[in-house]
């Protein structure tokens, strides 16, 4: 393993305690920033680092910050997205549980860069223990004067509020998250305007993922040049946390440069396929990402390479499926998730996601017809690109990719089910 950035803290015993964190450079980066840099210089540095949003969309973090209006007419808010509900993704939970102060330090840097004095952390409702750890860390930081008025004696004020979600995947979508923070039903907003212009309570707002923010202290410590070159790539900087799950020998979180290939991630780092089996398929970036077949894994894990391969880096959730995997059932589980999590606001996703699930469930129960496959492709096609938020596309993508790449699995399953019981394979 090359560099351990966040992992260094994840592996540090008791890094959730402020003293332990501080003994390993903790809160030194924010102090340096407050002392030596102007907000614009922080923005520039982060731009140069090529740090991309690790919540899923991979948008340049520095660029996103630069969209915040500079006129200062309205307060600016910083929001940390810790909703982490994308199946296959479990990195934010680990950061918040094991090294919450790293996130807080990152938020201080981000807040300073965009001139926010109030920040929110929206944490997934089910994350009880992580929430307790985080709340405790915030308390510690306040006690030490690292949060509140005049932090670190710099004259800069910052408050952080931790808000627990109520258990909806959609509240990870940034504009739904803002609605939920405002006390409303978590329904994505129409865009534009984007949150950088009209965000929380109608004010300019930066929303970043936990991991994105947690990289900031490390970027500021090592410098943009260093960070951007970690992956030897121009546009996708640095490392990220890959959450590997499924049929591998060593599932877990791996922090690797983003130019690592999927093959290397699975075989070199995650110990290869369990029980010496063959790889069948991988979902490389959370359940929303189109699936890749075993032949397609010589792809680098950065945002642009995966996009070129017809899938996405997404949230870094890598789900590995071995040769015994029933693709019908795998798709049914994915479709069930989206049908359950569709917020229901817009018609194509609300009705389409449920319809898709009903069909694939029927297939899985042995009542499928070959025509169902084309119907599903057409229904998924009608959802894609017609919805308010990306969840609609996300519901369509597994359907399209699983059926296109594993059509014969589906066809065989359907025809097998119609054979007399004793001859079924």
């Amino acid at each position, binding site marked *: 393993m090359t560099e351990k950035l966040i992992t260094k803290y994840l592996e540090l015993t008791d890094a959730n305690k402020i003293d332990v964190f501080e003994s390993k450079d903790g809160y030194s980066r924010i102090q340096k920033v407050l002392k030596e840099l102007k907000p614009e210089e922080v923005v520039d540095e982060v731009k140069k680092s090529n740090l991309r949003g690790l919540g899923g969309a991979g948008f340049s973090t520095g660029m996103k910050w630069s969209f915040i209006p500079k006129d200062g007419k309205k307060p600016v808010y910083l929001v940390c997205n810790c909703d982490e509900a994308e199946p296959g993704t479990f990195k934010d939970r680990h950061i918040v549980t094991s090294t919450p102060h790293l996130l807080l330090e990152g938020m201080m840097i981000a807040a300073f860069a965009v001139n926010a004095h109030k920040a929110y952390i929206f944490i997934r409702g089910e994350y009880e223990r992580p929430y307790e750890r985080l709340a405790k860390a915030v308390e510690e930081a306040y006690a030490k004067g690292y949060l509140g008025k005049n932090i670190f004696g710099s004259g800069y004020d910052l408050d952080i509020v931790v808000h627990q979600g109520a258990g909806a995947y959609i509240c990870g979508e940034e504009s739904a998250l803002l609605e939920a923070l405002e006390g409303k039903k978590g329904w994505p907003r*129409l865009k534009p305007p984007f949150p950088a212009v009209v965000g929380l309570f109608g004010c300019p707002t930066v929303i970043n993922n936990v991991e994105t923010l947690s990289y900031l202290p490390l970027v500021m410590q090592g410098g943009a040049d260093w960070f951007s070159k970690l992956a030897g790539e121009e546009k996708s900087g640095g490392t990220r946390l890959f959450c590997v799950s499924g049929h591998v020998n060593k599932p877990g979180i791996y922090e690797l440069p983003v130019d690592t290939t999927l093959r290397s991630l699975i075989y070199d780092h995650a110990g290869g396929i369990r029980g010496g089996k063959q790889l069948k398929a991988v979902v490389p970036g959370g359940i929303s990402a189109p699936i890749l077949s075993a032949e397609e894994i010589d792809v680098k894990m950065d945002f642009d390479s995966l996009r070129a391969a017809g899938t996405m880096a997404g949230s870094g959730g890598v789900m590995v499926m071995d040769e015994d995997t029933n693709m019908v059932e795998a798709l049914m589980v994915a479709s069930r998730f989206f049908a359950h999590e569709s917020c*229901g606001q817009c*018609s194509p996703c*609300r*009705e389409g996601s*449920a319809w898709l699930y009903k069909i694939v469930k029927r297939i899985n129960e042995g009542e499928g017809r070959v025509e169902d496959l084309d119907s599903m492709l057409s229904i998924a096609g*009608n959802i894609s*690109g017609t919805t308010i938020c990306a969840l609609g596309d996300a519901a369509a993508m597994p359907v399209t990719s699983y059926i296109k790449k594993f059509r014969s699995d589906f066809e065989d399953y359907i025809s097998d089910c119609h054979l007399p019981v004793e001859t079924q394979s």
Partner: protein
Amino acid sequence: MPKVTIDGHEIEVSQGTTIMQATKQLAIEVPYYCWHPGLSVAGNCRMCLVDVEGPPKPQIACYTQVTEGMVVHTQSEKAKKARKGTLEFLLSNHPLDCPVCDQAGECDLQNFYMDHGQYDSRFDEQKHKKKKAQPVGENVMLDQERCVLCSRCVRFCDEITGTGELGIVNRGSHEEITVFPGKEVNNAYSGNVVDICPVGALTDRDFRFKCRVWYLSSQDSVCPGCSQGCNIRIDSNLSRPQHGEGERVMRLKPRENLNVNDYWMCDEGRYNYNFIDRNRIQTASRVKEGVVEEILFEDAVDSLASVLGDAVREQRHGRIGVLVSTQLTNEDLFFVKKFFKTNLGMDAVESRFSFPEGSSDDFLIKADKSPNTAGAQALEVIASGTYQSGEDLIDKTIAGEFDVLISFGVDIDGLLGKEKLDAILEKVTLLAYVGSNHNETSKKAQLVIPSTVYAEKDGTFTNVHGRVQRIWPAFPPLGQARPEWQIICDLSEKTGFSVSADDAESIFSEITQTVSSFQGLSYEKLGKEGSLLSTVKETVEK
């Protein structure tokens, strides 16, 4: 001012105009469910997707603002496919119970299916079961299965009435419209949620199953329920009398007028139509030796005319009083005044009453429950001399100042009580009542002449803000009823005066020539939306 080309038609629009608004200006039809001109944009139904050159995905017309040089196609394959797809989704869980749905015939699911759907159903799964025929308020029935979750009704209750009774609960395809616990949709404007519901999910408990909408005829009108004068549509059923137990008016619907009522009307006005068909005075009558007997309309007019003629001849016209209701049109009022004051030379013609104030709010509902108080003021239908008001005139009748009292639609009993009415009857030789509906006054009056209701006549009302608005006859008068102005023409002819007109429009043009505040107006100019009196300049109309 960006220019946009839609389906090959170029149009320049103001900054911030949406594609939807631009298509409206070009009279290009784009289907929609969630968009409503009176509500915020929700952008959730996705029915208005159009093909904009540039972005790969279709864009929603209701939210996307026009930018300079934008090229939009509403009929390209991409746009058609998107709409068809959306419609298929909206219908996937829909119960398709049109044969028993009250909305059938005016349902946007039916309409758009014919225009944009036309596919073979391929939804083979179990549909969701939700609640049907659930009353959610005194006037509103909810069928959750038919709902397309456009959120119009929710936005109406949030944004227009601010009462927030409705919400969308649950997630995904389990979402449903419901009332919040302990609440009912009983705000003063609840009927509007039925109007804006594009499908049969919200239906009107008053109208439900009364009549299929394709049997209805519509006439534009103005609500006579208060001085706001909300623009309405009278929906009547003349072709299938058996469906409405012989009653003609099936329902009232608001009609758009941004100067007056936007798209809305209050429930009080909406459900106040039974008087049009019920309890009507259909024949003239008189009391003879204590018994009411029906007489010919002409005989009633003759008998009143001879009383008036005698009084004038004998110089007793000062002993006649006339009470005039502000339910009458400007045309009626003008002729009443012209005949009694100008021709007969009477002082005591009075339309000012202190009616008990009704409910009111800071939106549409006005405390003055007459549609034409401002018209009566502008036309100065007020007594000269020492008379202060209608009540004053009544008191003076009781004090013996008048021998004859003629009431045009003023129910003395309803206004001041039985005692006053009886006291009047003790004093006068004749109490004549000209009106459309029976009441205690009409029952005791010695002479009754039937007149039309607003739904049966041409004319104008002047609303509280001085806006003069047209009404049109939705159907012919019941029985012998005639508009008041025609009754005046008849009386005039019989008494040898020359108050006459062929129609309400010619009276209106006479008004515009003689009453300065009406100067410059004409029926043509009033159009569907009305015009302000010339004396009313800048005004906040709402």
